[in-house]
């Protein structure tokens, strides 16, 4: 019969090392499960919020229609608000889906011809009502046309997150969105005139769950928004940096390769 203490020292060392490795893997799994649970809590929280205006506006519309109180113009106004609330919900769900695709390694770029100047103008347009509510105004600085091939949905997601943050954290101030042509590269910038971001926060804001849920978490918005932006930029072989802007505020600069449909390996 053989007892553990009878094993040669090298075998005991190997067993101890294997046990240590198992402990380490177990700790990692516990951490991963906790992170997943936190993310589910964030997602549930953030997907519940936009349901209030959707359900509420439908209730209002139904009540008014049943009472015969609405003109066709009022019905259209209410339906437009429902539509906007639905768009907001779809954007948040899209962020959640991106997180899932990125973390599971299933994210793939879908390159297609796209005009970056048009995309900037169209994305900014979707924020018209939100910006009006927050007292923000937009300045768009783009060339007449900036054609290339990019993953349009990923670009929209990047711009959407950066513009949304600018409005949220710098209300009642202007927001400048610009795109520049550098030949084989393009540069997107979103600049706000808010309080700026401290050096410590600048180093952490692209981390996942930086602003995730918790009893002390008090800010709204997906805690993974900038993490998703960072991941999408990296997937497009680009870079993103945030700096203090001259004259106050922050400027997010995204530099991307200007693909054509044929030069993507």
């Amino acid at each position: 019969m053989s007892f553990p203490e009878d094993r040669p020292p090298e075998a005991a060392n190997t067993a101890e090392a294997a046990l240590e490795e198992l402990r380490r893997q177990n700790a990692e799994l516990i951490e991963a499960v906790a992170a997943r649970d936190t993310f589910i809590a964030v997602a549930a929280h953030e997907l519940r919020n936009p349901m209030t205006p959707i359900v509420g506006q439908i209730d209002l519309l139904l009540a008014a229609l049943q009472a015969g109180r609405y003109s066709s113009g009022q019905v259209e106004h209410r339906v437009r608000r429902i539509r906007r609330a639905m768009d907001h919900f779809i954007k948040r769900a899209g962020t959640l889906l991106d997180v899932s695709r990125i973390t599971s390694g299933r994210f793939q770029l879908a390159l297609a011809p796209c005009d970056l100047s048009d995309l900037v103008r169209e994305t900014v347009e979707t924020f018209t009502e939100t910006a009006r509510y927050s007292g923000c105004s937009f300045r768009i600085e783009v060339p007449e046309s900036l054609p290339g091939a990019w993953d349009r949905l990923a670009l929209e997601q990047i711009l959407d997150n950066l513009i949304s943050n600018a409005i949220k954290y710098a209300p009642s101030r202007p927001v400048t969105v610009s795109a520049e042509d550098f030949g084989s590269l393009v540069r997107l910038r979103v600049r706000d005139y808010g309080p700026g971001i401290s050096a410590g926060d600048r180093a952490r804001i692209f981390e996942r769950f930086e602003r995730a849920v918790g009893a002390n978490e008090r800010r709204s918005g997906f805690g993974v928004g900038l993490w998703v932006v960072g991941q999408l930029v990296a997937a497009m072989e680009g870079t993103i940096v945030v700096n203090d802007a001259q004259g106050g505020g922050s400027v997010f600069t995204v530099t991307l390769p200007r693909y054509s449909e044929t030069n993507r390996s």
Partner: protein
Amino acid sequence: MTRVVLVVDDEIGIAELIDAVLTDEGYRVLTAVNGRQGLAIMAKDHPDLVFLDYMMPVMDGADVLRAMARDLSTDGVPVVLMSSMPEDLVAERCPGYAVFMRKPFRIAQ
């Protein structure tokens, strides 16, 4: 005299919804996008009731409640605190609100 209601929420959809419901009921509804803006409107327009979101950028609901309690002109103004988080998680930080409304809520509430 028309009663004034202030809605402080960074989500435009929530503010528009409460605005639509209460305007129909004959109230004058004002909106603010964060706590700091909300306090400025309170100082100027002296609302009779405040709907206050808990989680907001710039200045959140808990900080607004504390600022309201320190100011004689706003101390005592009833506040409906709104959050998608459970009340027991936010109550500790939030002194003096009158009613808690968990999001998503229905108009009938």
